[in-house]
């Protein structure tokens, strides 16, 4: 999936929820996504803050990018809450993890709750963009893509 394969003009309407306790990383993700046309972002420092954004009826969130390791409520807790909620369960969810041996266990845990993709820290802009586009448009070659 590449930038040229999709109609990126639709991205400006989509709201991305970025969840990470590290503000610098949230800003990097935001800037990377701005580069391909996203314009609407919501930030959260942990799972509880993210959950508040998700339940605010004013927000129509199209994609969640979430760090695994966070205080208060971690990525897996948020993923389970999202997948267990009738209204939220179909929102694409990308999990960001740190690279280490225990990640395998985490990935199998996350797979149980149908995570759409993983990104391993540290990541490059290209990887992030590709995964995001794949998750939003890749599943059924453009079926999900509004005209």
């Amino acid at each position, binding site marked *: 999936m590449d930038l040229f394969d999709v109609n990126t003009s639709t991205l400006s309407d989509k709201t991305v929820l970025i969840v990470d306790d590290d503000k*610098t990383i949230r800003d990097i993700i935001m800037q990377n996504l701005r580069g391909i046309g996203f314009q609407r972002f919501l930030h959260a420092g942990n799972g509880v803050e993210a959950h508040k954004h998700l339940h605010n009826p004013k927000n129509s969130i199209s994609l969640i990018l979430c760090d695994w390791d966070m205080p208060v409520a971690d990525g897996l807790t948020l993923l389970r809450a999202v997948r267990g909620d009738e209204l939220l369960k179909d929102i694409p969810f990308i999990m960001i993890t*740190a690279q280490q041996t225990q990640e395998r266990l985490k990935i199998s845990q996350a797979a149980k709750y149908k995570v759409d993709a993983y990104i391993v820290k540290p990541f490059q802009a290209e990887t992030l963009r590709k995964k995001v586009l794949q998750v939003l448009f890749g599943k059924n070659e453009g079926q999900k893509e509004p005209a």
Partner: protein
Amino acid sequence: MSNAVKLFKEHEHLIPKGSPVPNRRILVVDDEPEIAQGIQRILSPQQNQVIPLRSSRGSAKPEEKQKSEFEVVVVNTPQRALEEIKKSIESNNPFAVGFFDVMLGAEMDGIELVQKAFQIDPRLFAVFVTAYHDRSVDSIGNFLGEESREKWDYINKPFTEGEILQKARNSTSLWDLNRLKDWQADRLSEAHQILLSVEKQNAVAAIGRSVAHEFGNLLTHIIGHAEIAQMSDQISEIKNSLDIILKAGNTAASVLKNFRNLNEAHDKEADFKIHNIMHIIDEAIELMEFRFRRHNIKVKKTGLASYSAEVNKSSIIQVFANLFINAIHAMPQGGELLIDMKEEDSSVSLSVKDSGTGIDEKILSRVTEPLFTTKGSEGSGLGLAICKEIIEVEHGGSFKISNHPKGGVVVQFMIPQMKEKNNGFI
């Protein structure tokens, strides 16, 4: 074959190679040749017969071919006795037991001889052969002292064959058992050292996981902002990215330096130097920073801002890392970790308190026992036991864990400002 010899045969695989066990060598010291040879005849009939008979009859009778239970060396003077004992030690073929006549009719009596013999061979077991008119058993005990109490016994004259045989069997078996005990104590001490070093590695690994996480984030900062800067044509944005990259690089360098210090210091055993304890605490906190943040734990320091003491830095970091890991487990929903430092009688008094639910009073006294754990397969059960050992044995301090009246667990420990000599790790 005596029971002890049988026991050793059955457990041969447990006995180290080159061990003198089972040892049935006996020294008999008596100035009267008839008594000395009498004892030898009882303990080693064949040995006694073969020497005179071999030349006259040529071959021994079949029953005489059976090896004697004991190998007996007979001497008639204290001087010869000491020479034999010296020789036995030099040739690594020690005597298990010596039968010592008390009245040796020489410049030295049997008791003085045994005292000298113990100096040459502290493992030797002595049996005094006494007559009623000789020195009393009490006076032997007083002369040889409390520390030798387990190393001697006596038999009264006149004795029967059975008594001599029984004494010889009992005391040689005792010698064997004591060697086996020494050997097991050595193995236990080796195992203990291995456990210590494994636990150190566990603490380093736990810190390593925290550091790896931290690096994942810092590298994300660096890579992310390098890319942002590359794409940007605004000087202010590029400068901002470079600032963030520089800051992340410096933080990573500092974390790496602490981590490397921890590993390097870890290689040098008992490396005692004067350190500012607060710097050590700060390093331990920095190494665990990621896990504190991840678990929403606020760390607060109170009391002295600085105190210098002679410590093994890597051990003290290990103590704090273990206490921090326990505190994180005790506060899964986050909380507050209080570290307090005070000076008390030329010692530094430290306390680490969490805001968790505390420890069940029923098990509180057991938590510093080796292998005790409440964490199931996640805990090695060695963390607190090792902390206690590091503080009390390595640093000559004191270590106490209790429930705080206001809730949570508090670990209090003291470290003397200067390490006392002769108080180090063995």
